[in-house]
């Protein structure tokens, strides 16, 4: 039974990672921009939500505020900074987005203050339901899984079945040709960037009731998100989904069962810290193994 619960935990963590990774992989894969500010969009979303929820009391309003706040901030960042860096080397992009990350952290602490705000679980999502006999699971975490699945389906539809999705794919393959055919590639890039920021903001508002809304919350998860998109293959939404679920599962199951496995052969004093170390390294081991077998990731967008 505990195994199933840990599987659910892995699934939920994976879905959370997917919402962040989907945007990051599109921006990285299509626009070729290494965007360290992505974690900031997540934070901006969470803060906008926290502020709106505390002043209106409505979680739905919080979701809208998070999407608007993160999406708008994404547009501003793209137009003012990123747009100037498409033709530059990755190093310039890393430097600029790293600077933006610090800037955002300080800006948020000036606007909202340094004390982490409170976001309660909305009453509709409070409590647990029994998924299987003897296994109660918090509704808020289940809704995370459902929302992640909806986002996956929605993105699949957007990328594969709509005109804008077609342009996104075309832009990824050969953006000069798309430009030459009369498509405003700049506008397209802005839309992709805003979409990525929007998804990060959505992850932020969903995480707010169960995680601390604090300055720097995005950096904590950004590295793991990069691991996800490297495993999944840069630029592929499908890869992001598979990568996120893999990383979520490996991380959760590793943390859950490594201590017990090691505890069978070693004394608990050694097994505890050692297992914690191994579990936190497990996703990097996973990444290394995937890259040895498939250097471009599981589902590379471009060959």
């Amino acid at each position, binding site marked *: 039974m505990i195994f199933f619960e840990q599987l659910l935990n892995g699934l939920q963590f994976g879905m959370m990672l997917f919402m962040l990774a989907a945007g990051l992989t599109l921006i990285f894969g299509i626009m070729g921009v290494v965007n360290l500010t992505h974690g900031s969009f997540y934070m901006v979303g969470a803060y906008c939500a926290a502020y709106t929820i505390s002043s209106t009391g409505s979680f739905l309003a919080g979701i809208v505020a998070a999407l608007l706040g993160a999406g708008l901030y994404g547009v501003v960042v793209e137009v003012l900074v990123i747009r100037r860096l498409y033709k530059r080397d990755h190093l310039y992009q890393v430097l600029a987005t790293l600077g933006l990350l610090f800037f955002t952290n300080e800006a948020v*602490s000036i606007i909202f203050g340094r004390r*982490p705000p*409170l976001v309660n679980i909305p009453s509709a999502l409070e409590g647990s339901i029994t998924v299987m006999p003897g296994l109660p699971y918090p509704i808020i975490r289940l809704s995370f899984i459902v929302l992640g699945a909806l986002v996956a389906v929605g993105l699949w539809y957007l990328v594969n079945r709509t005109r804008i999705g077609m342009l996104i794919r075309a832009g990824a393959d050969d953006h000069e040709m798309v430009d030459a055919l009369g498509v405003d590639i700049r506008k397209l890039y802005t839309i992709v960037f805003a979409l990525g920021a929007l998804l990060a903001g959505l992850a932020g508002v969903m995480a707010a009731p169960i*995680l601390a809304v*604090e*300055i720097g919350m995005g950096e*904590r998860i950004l590295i793991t998100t990069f691991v996800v998109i490297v495993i999944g293959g840069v630029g592929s939404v499908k890869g992001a989904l598979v990568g996120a679920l893999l990383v979520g599962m490996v991380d959760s199951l590793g943390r859950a069962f490594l201590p017990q496995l090691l505890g069978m052969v070693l004394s608990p004093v050694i097994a505890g810290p050692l297992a914690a170390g191994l579990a936190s390294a497990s996703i990097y081991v996973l990444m290394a193994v995937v890259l040895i077998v498939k250097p471009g990731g599981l589902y590379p967008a471009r060959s």
Partner: protein
Amino acid sequence: MFKKIAVGALMCASTLAWAAPDSVEIGFITTLSTPAGYIGEDERDGFNLAIKQGDGQLGGIPISLIVEDDALKPANAKQTSDRLIQSGVQLFTGVNFSNVLAAVVPGVTRSGAFYVSLNPGPSVFAGKRCDPNYFVASYQNDAYHAAGGIAANSLGYKKVALLAPNYQAGRDAISGFKETFEGEVIAEIYTTLDQSDFSVEMARIRDLNPDAIYQFHPGGTGINFVKQYSAAGLTDTVPMVTPGFSLDLRMLEAVGDAAEGTYVTGIWSMDIDNPQSKKFVSDFQEEYGRLPTEYAMQAYDTAQLIGSALKAVDGDLSKKDDFRAALRKADFQSLRGDFRFNTNHHPIQDLYLMQIVKNEDGQLRPKLIREIASDYEDAYAASCEMPS
């Protein structure tokens, strides 16, 4: 060019020193930026409150407080303290984290200056490496965790699971708890310092079904932990014991109702029935519009301790032996009530058990349950051979 700059710098330095000829300078290096900045804010404000109440003086001596931000980086703090030592500052306090303190203290004491800690009291400086010019007015780091073990005993818990991040302070927390706990530790679960999701640990706790858990997670990780503990429905079935600084008032605001029922340990409670503590709480609230945390309390006590010693030497820090002897006496009215120094310059004080409950106004506050240890002293004093 270089000469010009050097001359300019000298002039600046001399005008600065000229500004307040008779005041004692105190170097106050603390953490004001980063998410932990609220802690430094409370410490600075608590310290300033004491100065303000003395009309800019501590113990009748005018004070000029030099506040610097260390951004939680030991290297920053070390640089700042070196600079202040060179400009003649003889007395330091303010540092908020053990790792930063470890970078600052050796340089300060080696130069012959004094350091009075208002928050961390790491074990390294409490035992063999104790120093005549180093005082800790707050607590030795083990105190809170030892209190956790005593609290678990007194609450009748037999099987307890322990959780802490896998780093020095986390491992100290677990060993500190085990030192005083008499029941069985059924699991030691190590998390990571940057972990935000604890669902795995929650499932494990439910599976283990202990009588209680003891957890130590600082800052944001602590907020995450308590929120998710409640979301997992564990609050009702497995009681939680945690050190006070793992669920301070600011964190409590961010955690909300999820924290209700949690037991916290501490060296002070707002409910302690002594007039100076009551007055401090209401003065602090009036001045800053928020309730003081234990950090503010410690800073206020530190300011008073320093004041009592400055008074004894009439503000003359060159009388080092007299100043040291006066600090050792701890001749001030601590907000904690009983307070005296052990031979290793760490406090001997009482420990308290509190529980997070709603007060009459429906606000969550740590409510004093009882004193769980009287005159607690740390175990390191025995190995400290303090040169007199």
